[in-house]
């Protein structure tokens, strides 16, 4: 395995204007993506994911740090670096004045493919993405899912080493999302390096071999989804929605089998209800003990759920916040 992308101490500060202060979008991010890897940047909106991707793709000028794609520094050799990467942007920027097929052939021409080659590649990719019957249509007449597939086909026209996708499944219906997942997994199996940003935990869990969880412009943790979940204290997650006159955390923490209690920042839960997340080792009578402890404190449990940990739990554990759309 060899590194196809190296990001070192990346910093991006958007300069302030008269009334707005400067924004530190990325505050020292470093990671390495191996050739053939499926890598995910996970985090809430505004975490710095898109800015990081922008810096890798040369559309955002880094304030500090270094990015190397396939041995090429992207700031010093942008044109050569751009040949090796392909981008599926968050906003669908398809050329609305061309047909679906022309979107592909012109993209090939921009990358210097000879005519015969770009025509052949376009036909093959149209077939692969099941777009052949829409070849003569204008891109904006396609559904969101089809537009997304066209964006991927366009990205693959110049045979990139790394495919970067920025929140590729936003706004897609569940069916289109699943189809896109299949497509990406297929491409990955063929050896393409895939890097995607997402704020859908389930998506990162299912697709990515390694995940970097980002918040406030920094990487909080970076590992395989399984290792991240194994790193949580306790084997399972017990979520409680309750109302209590006094804090119940001390009582709960003291219970055998409960390794940690976290208060989940609640955004506007009405009537003084609070959410607690217990990291527990399942054992006989545990649930009973937890409910008793709450009741003994004069509290009232409204809702209970016991789950295997997900990446979202890792995220909440790290940030104390829930990830929201």
């Amino acid at each position: 395995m060899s590194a196809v992308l190296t990001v070192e101490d990346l910093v991006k500060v958007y300069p302030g204007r008269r009334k707005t202060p400067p924004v530190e979008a990325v505050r020292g991010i470093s990671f390495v993506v191996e050739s053939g890897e499926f890598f995910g940047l996970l985090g809430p909106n505004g975490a710095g994911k898109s800015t990081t991707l922008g810096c890798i793709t040369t559309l955002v000028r880094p304030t500090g740090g270094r990015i190397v794609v396939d041995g090429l520094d992207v700031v010093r050799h942008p044109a050569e670096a751009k040949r090796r990467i392909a981008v599926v942007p968050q906003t669908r920027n398809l050329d609305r004045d061309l047909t679906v097929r022309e979107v592909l052939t012109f993209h090939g021409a921009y990358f210097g493919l000879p005519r015969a080659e770009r025509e052949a590649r376009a036909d093959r990719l149209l077939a692969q993405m099941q777009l052949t019957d829409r070849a003569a249509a204008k891109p904006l007449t396609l559904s969101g899912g089809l537009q997304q597939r066209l964006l991927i086909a366009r990205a693959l026209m110049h045979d990139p080493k790394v495919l970067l996708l920025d929140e590729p499944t936003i706004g897609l219906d569940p069916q289109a999302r699943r189809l896109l997942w299949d497509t990406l997994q297929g491409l990955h199996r063929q050896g393409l390096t895939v890097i995607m940003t997402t704020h859908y935990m389930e998506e990162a869990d299912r697709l990515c071999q390694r995940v970097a969880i980002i918040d406030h412009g920094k990487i909080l943790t970076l590992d395989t989804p399984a290792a991240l979940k194994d790193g949580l204290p306790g084997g399972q997650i017990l979520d409680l929605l309750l109302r209590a006159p006094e804090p119940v955390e001390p009582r709960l923490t003291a219970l055998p089998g409960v390794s940690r209690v976290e208060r989940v920042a609640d955004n506007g839960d009405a009537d003084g209800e609070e959410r607690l997340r217990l990291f527990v080792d399942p054992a006989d009578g545990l649930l009973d003990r937890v409910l008793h402890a709450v009741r003994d404190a004069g509290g009232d449990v409204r809702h209970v759920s016991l789950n295997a940990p997900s990446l979202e739990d890792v995220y909440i554990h790290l940030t104390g916040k829930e990830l929201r759309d």
Partner: protein
Amino acid sequence: MTTFLAILRRDLLVSFRNSPLLLMATLTQPVLVVLVFGNILPRLNLVADEFRAVMVPGLMSITMLMAGVQGVLMPLAADLSGSREVDERLLAPISLPGVVAEKVVAGAIHASLAGLLALPAMIALMHRVGGLEVSPRWSVLLPMVVLSGLLSAAFGLTIGSNIQPRFSGLLFAVILGPMMLFGCAYYPWASLEVLGPVRYVFLVNPLVFMSEAMRMAVTPDIPHMPLGLLLGGLAFFGAVFGTLGARSFARRTIL
């Protein structure tokens, strides 16, 4: 260079497909002005015959300015809109100055064709009235058209990357309107001698140099600006707007 030519080919293909609309947008104004001031009013003896010959090169330059501005402004609006179509070009293996240069060249081709189409259209419309002293010197006209086209497109790039689309109505009223009225389109710069030194104030308007360039090429008998001043003006404004436009474009596209 391959990338540059491929992007240019794409722009010209799209323009060609939209050509009926583009022709209407660029030629309606000069044709109607010629119809009224070059055909109807002279027949009513309300306008001196000489005015028609003065007006032809002036309207050519106005047509080119409008076509150049539109040829850059409209695509730029789509580029910089929410969908950011420009990103596809920025992700192609071409430098940012290359992307900018392509935009200016495409706009200049647009403007040059509009100017070259407007000339015969105007001559044909005024032909019936007779006594029109228009004798284009092509060897002068073609280079002047190219220079004026480049200036128009560079101006369009500056305007387009600095003005929000929602203010484009204001652009025509506040910038392009006055430029046309004071752009020596309807009177030769030489005749402004009657205004004294004030005539030099007119030189802040790049359209003046375009009008005079067309005048020199199309109606050689009518006095025009000295060649040195004329070329200097075209080159100066072309360079200024090219630089300003490229800088603003870079600021709007690379964060």
